[in-house]
């Protein structure tokens, strides 16, 4: 029996998984947009984004637009590869679970 893959714990968290899935479809996204799409609180969202940033899965850019602070997040190549690997592992596990 082939060895089952392990799911990446950084990505497996529901909010972090939602964030990476949102970011893969766009070039970059504002903090406020991510908050509205996930329905998360500022504190929780900030903490989860920080974990993804520390893992090198997202890059952050802070700037001022018309004197207002704006925080932009975009997915890195490492993040893209990690999410792809996670989906593959998930499908493999699901296939095994259904076949069991």
């Amino acid at each position, binding site marked *: 029996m082939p060895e089952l893959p392990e799911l990446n714990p950084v990505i*497996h968290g*529901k909010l972090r*998984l*939602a964030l990476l*899935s*949102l*970011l*893969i*479809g*766009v*070039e*970059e*996204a*504002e903090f*406020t*947009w991510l908050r509205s*799409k996930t329905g998360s609180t500022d504190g929780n969202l900030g903490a989860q984004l920080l974990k993804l940033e520390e893992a090198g899965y997202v890059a952050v850019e802070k700037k001022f637009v018309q004197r207002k602070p704006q925080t932009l997040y975009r997915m890195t190549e490492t993040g893209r590869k990690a*999410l792809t690997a996670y*989906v593959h592992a*998930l*499908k493999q*596990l*699901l296939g095994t*679970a*259904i076949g*069991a």
Partner: protein
Amino acid sequence: MNANAEELELKDRLSLIESMIAEGRRTTESWGWTFLLWGVAYYVAIAWSAFGQPAIAWPVTMTVGGVLTSVLAARVRGNQPGTTVGRAMMAIWTCMGISLFILMMSLGITGRLELHLGAAIVAAMLGTANATSSIILKWKMQFASAVVWWAAMVAALFTSEFATGIVFLVAIFFCQIVFGIYCMISESRRHKARASGQEASHA
């Protein structure tokens, strides 16, 4: 955790990924108003140059149109994230606009601007931009607009000055005014459908 609960959790994660990717790619960009705005701008420029000052009518109207488009686009976009398709659309239309502006200004300044050729160039470039956008967006209605512009291009080279003018006014009416209003109506319907869908899913 038993096997069934584990399977449900895995399915839940997979469904979360699918729904979030779809949500991220779901564009709320609205561009119908730009067609309408530029249609009105062309009519203003044509009327101004026919009954007023042809030397400044086009450059001034086009510059004002460009500034208005950038300001309104930034407001309409709000905090929506940029998508690759959105950037492709912006690139096509901005580059087409800049090329057209520089070419027409240069032809006007050097005195080499001739009505038939000028009209054919404008129609050809608008046809190209509409066709390219329609292929990227897989939108047949916009391709029909491109065909109208290409027909206007051919007509501009084979008909009289008066007929060329009429053909142009008609092309602007259908490809800018009517198409712009059609876009705005379909965008509004799409936004309403999404809003009601989201309300239902949050209920």
